[in-house]
């Protein structure tokens, strides 16, 4: 059943009349009669205005890939693109394929998103069924996040944080607490680009002041309580005290940003009503979230983004396929073929995003040269439909201006490989964070930088 695309009043038409920065809320008449989203007509800018800075986006696809069609058979800079990676051929010189890597502590199954950016041993702490540790994006955001309005963005196809071992987010803070994702394009766009009511500046400042008074009050209460507690209880309360103090600092940061206006951005062509859970809308939803990510980088609204394209196990493929079932292919040729189709369809979305970045000039180079794109999965369905955490499908694109080397296949022995954390450490350093430690990293990844 093919839904018809009606032609409603285009957003561009309306925006021309109203001035570009006034974008939302949307008018009913603009909704197509069908409830489905139409293909995006978004166009990237030819030139970016902001000063080039390092940025990174981590893109996660669930349920692994058809690894047979993914891994190139040849190595090094002369390698030949694999059938699946052919999809990205126009960007061959701007990305590296990394194979054979994995997190040594990862346990497989569908917990890949939980550890993809953390590398944690989820069962490391006795007495807890699950503990995670800080993810690379949050480590970066801690260090450089204060320079942008949003230290980081978290996007996912199911909003919120999900459940342990089936995480809906890639991002975990310093305490290992998952950070909720946004899945609604319209809400995300509003948060990033729609200006707050100018008249409310005073009210906002008052609100922050009030919040600080309340935090001060509970902090006082907690300190008094602390004196009455035993050691174990004090340790628990210590987490509370530290969290309240940190929250006070964040309020201060919000106050610091209040007089800086949000970037003005046109929403023309963006399919902000795309729904992630709808088989028809899947590609449009992926596109619009990547378009918003592009705009967020372009305007220096944030420099760090994590984006879980689909959740593990239950997730949809880009066309609404039952991706999870295909991942249990058991070596079945027909299912592997379908799986490769899903993989290519995903890479087409990525290809489009890379093309946007590539076509936008920024300080004499392309935006892609300044933006690192890490793409992959935390699961490998192998040749038999395993759910293994080894030999993960992974590629890194962009960031040439910061010294990332591309156009190569860095093949590793899956039985004796450097930890995946080395890739994360490489990216973390290129983002300007001075550290030589991340999780179990033994250094940066040889050959990537």
């Amino acid at each position, binding site marked *: 059943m093919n839904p018809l695309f009606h032609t409603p009043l285009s957003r561009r038409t309306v925006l021309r009349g109203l001035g570009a920065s006034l974008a939302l809320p949307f008018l009913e008449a603009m909704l197509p009669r069908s409830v489905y989203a139409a293909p995006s007509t978004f166009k990237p800018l030819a030139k970016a205005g902001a000063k080039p800075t390092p940025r990174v986006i981590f893109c996660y696809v669930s349920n692994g890939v058809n690894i047979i069609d993914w891994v190139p058979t040849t190595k090094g800079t002369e390698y030949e693109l694999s059938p699946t990676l052919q999809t990205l051929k126009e960007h061959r010189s701007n990305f590296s394929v990394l194979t054979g890597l994995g997190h*040594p502590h990862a346990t497989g199954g569908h917990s890949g998103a939980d550890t993809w950016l953390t590398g944690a041993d989820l069962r490391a702490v006795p007495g807890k*069924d699950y503990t995670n540790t800080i993810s690379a994006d949050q480590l970066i955001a801690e260090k450089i996040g204060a320079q942008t309005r949003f230290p980081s963005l978290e996007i996912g196809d199911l909003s919120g944080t999900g459940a342990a071992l089936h995480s809906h987010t890639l991002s975990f803070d310093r305490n290992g607490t998952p950070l909720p994702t946004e899945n609604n394009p319209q809400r995300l766009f509003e948060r990033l680009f729609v200006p707050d009511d100018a008249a409310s500046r005073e009210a906002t400042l008052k609100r922050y002041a009030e919040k600080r008074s309340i935090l001060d009050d*509970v902090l006082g209460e907690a300190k008094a309580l602390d004196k009455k*507690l035993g050691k174990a209880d004090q340790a628990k309360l210590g987490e509370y005290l530290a969290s309240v103090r940190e929250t006070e600092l964040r309020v201060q940061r919000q106050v610091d940003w209040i007089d800086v206006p949000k970037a003005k951005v046109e929403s023309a062509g963006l399919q902000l009503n795309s729904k992630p859970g709808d088989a028809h809308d899947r590609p449009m939803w992926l596109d619009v979230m990547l378009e918003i990510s592009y705009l967020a980088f372009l305007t220096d609204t944030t420099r760090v983004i994590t984006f879980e394209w689909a959740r593990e196990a239950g997730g949809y493929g880009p066309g609404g396929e039952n991706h999870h079932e295909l991942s249990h292919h058991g070596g079945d040729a027909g299912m592997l073929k379908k799986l490769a189709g899903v993989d290519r369809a995903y890479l087409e979305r990525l290809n489009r995003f890379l093309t946007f970045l590539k076509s936008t000039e920024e300080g004499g180079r392309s935006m892609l040269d300044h933006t690192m794109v890490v793409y992959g999965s935390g699961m490998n369905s192998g040749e038999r439909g395993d759910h293994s955490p080894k030999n993960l499908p992974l590629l890194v694109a962009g960031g040439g201006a910061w010294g990332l080397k591309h156009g190569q296949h860095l093949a590793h022995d899956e039985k004796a490989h450097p930890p995946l954390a080395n890739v994360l450490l490489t990216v973390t350093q290129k983002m300007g964070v001075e550290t030589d430690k991340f999780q179990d990293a033994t250094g940066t990844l040889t050959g990537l930088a």
Partner: protein
Amino acid sequence: MRPRFLIFAPVFGTVFGALALGLMATNLQAQDLAHRPDTAGFAGVVQPFIRDHCVSCHGPEKQKGKLRLDTLANNFADPLVASKWAEVVNSVNGHEMPPEDEKQPPAERAGKFADWLAAELGRAEIAKRSTRVVLRRMNRAEYDNTIRDLVGVDFRPSEKFPEDPPAGGFDNIGQALSISPMQVELYYAAARQILDRALVEGPQPAAIKWRFEPEENTEGGDRYRVKRDGNNILLNDGENSTENGFTVVHHESWNKGIGFRGFNLAEEGEYVIRFRAAGRVPARAAVVASARAILEKRRDDETAKNPKDKVYHDQQFERDLKHYETHRSYDYGPPRVKLSQHLGGTPRVLGEMDIDAPETAPKTYEIRASFTKQNAGVELQYAYSVPRSLENFWMQGKDEFARPLLLVDWIELEGPLHPQWPPASHRRVLFDSLLKDKDEKAYAREVLTRFMSRAYRRPARVEEVEAKLVLFEKLRAEKPSFVEAIKVPLAAVLASPHFLYLVEPEAPAAQPRKLNGYELATRLSYFLWSSMPDEELFRLAANGELLKPAVLGQQATRMIADPKNEAFVKNFAGQWLGLRKVGANPPAKNLYPEYDRHLEISIVRETEGFFAEILRRDLDARNLLKSDFVTINERLARFYGIPGVKGDAIRRVPAPPESHRGGIVTQASIQSITSNGTRTSPVVRGTWILKTLLGSDPGLPVANVGEIASKVPGIDKATVRQRLQIHREAAACARCHDKIDPLGLAMENYNAAGEWRDREGHGYEGRIDANDPIIDASAKMPDGTEFKGVEGLQAQLLKKEDLFLNALASQLYTYGLGRELGFSDRPAVRASVEAMKRNRYLVRALLLTIVQSDLFTTK
């Protein structure tokens, strides 16, 4: 690289042997507080093995990998030593050691060695655990319930909070419940939101009541507008037909939804959505007749096109018709509706319900929903699922095909609902008082004292109230009203550690002390209600009566009978049995077409209802293992093949023996969470039984061993059992799997969706063909015990009732105390089980001994 730990003792090796009871129930003394080394086992098992198989590389001469084993101490209490032993276990279990080119130990000997080490590691780990209850943060469910009981607004503010990290299988374990800056932000935002909803000002907002007749839409579909209170609303009747003023929906489709959207309400708050509807449910004969007509036409059309293939078309016709005549799916239940709300572009399912009213007597159905002023919509969708099987998928959407029809008369939106003004939540917090209009500050003090004494679950101290009053006075001048100003200190109360944590102060390093009345009331209410104490508990806490065991017992009995105890069933049984995992990895649609949303909801309700039935009707706890009844609704009755159950309510009915149902292990919820979405997993099922019902954890597999092979050479239709057999042929695997898999293999008659089967389907999309292999559900444990099928398994489990009751009691203690158990807790667990057995095996009796135990009443 650090090894993955096999943390818990693999007592499974002896589960069906005589030793198990000894280890679980009788051998341990109360003074076993610290880990004491097992010197005999070390000398008898470990040292000889090391001498024979390890010492040449890890001994005095060589220390490969910097590891020397002949001098590694029998001291599992030392974390560094323990981590080295753990590495040894993993490398032996994983077949990494001894290396391939060295002399290999007999599998049995290696097994004994690894099992002994793993058991010691487990014992040491448990001995290390703190047996003190630690300061515990409310989890999400507790937060919501507490807000409901404290403030009187019930809208699940915790929906935005991250999931609470579990320990020991439960998400109410103080040690694991951490807090992050983000959570402080969320608690703060929730506090503001809660108070804005609870406290009001000004006159009662005008209510609206909009009624829509879908058939008023004369243009059809989604293109007709009606006006209501200044809103230009899209009224959609779907691509449906109309009969006598009723819109008739035949099946679910993107263009069949009925609803109205594109409006902005002037007031936010709680609304009710009502609709008048009925169902028309065709009997089997009508289904067959409709199918026959469609199939005949297809047969005739095909035959006209290809006359020489007539015989095949005739055969196909007969085959397909038989499907409609025989398959249980066509004993239709009433049509079903899914009601959704759209707010600011985000859809949200409000609920689903059966439309059980007949056409002769349509009924009004309703559901409540919160609306904001955002652009909104309401949609009503047909939600009865006829499984899309091969025989019917192409004709499901045809209107001639008989399905349960949904008839909708009208839809209505009314609200905001305020049975009284100001609402009850407002009156509860800002109660009437002589001071109210006389002395603002004195009234604020009165309000805060009362609110804090309930929020902190104990009388608020004067200095605490005065500190909040300072906050009130500080902001009073810049606030337009008393109500706005009092919200500030009230928000601080809801962000306070005294509210967010269950606080039980202790003198440092003191011996365990008796809880005071308030602390005990709090433990009790969070155990049995997942919420704060009510007025009666507070009263008994204040006068000290609650400290009397008899009164405590009476209160627990009262609380179990209270509707709020539903939270206990959901949170305890839901986590103990793993019901929260239902749907996380659902059976694939094409392989298990009968597994639909209605079934998924029903299987969870079945198991919850089963536990509740046994608890509240005072039935023998062994019914959990095997019962002669089931707790089902019509949807499940159809799935299980049990006749005579009508309606969506879960109720107790006798289980006919041929249904193979009765007891937790026969329930579809358990069958589906122990499968991987595409096939059954006997390993997961066996592990589930060991952990959940027998209280022993077989640990994690030593390495990722991957998916079992999809094909077995030489066998045309290899069953899961045969595929698993290949995997187990490796001696290292067999050692553990011999103890795990038989338990799961006995359940092979249930497929991955929990449906009973006699054969394993190997046809297209998992269909069962005539020659497919018959299920072999026989099982043989390592000790030689043999049994067959789920009934055999249940008989074995009943023989191990002490293991089961110990497991149940341990889980209840863990949940009730909010901490994991250590060795020193075992006598208490055992005593509770004994008391329960003396008292007709009642779960309620078990709960009473727990709340009256020293563990529960001291800190």
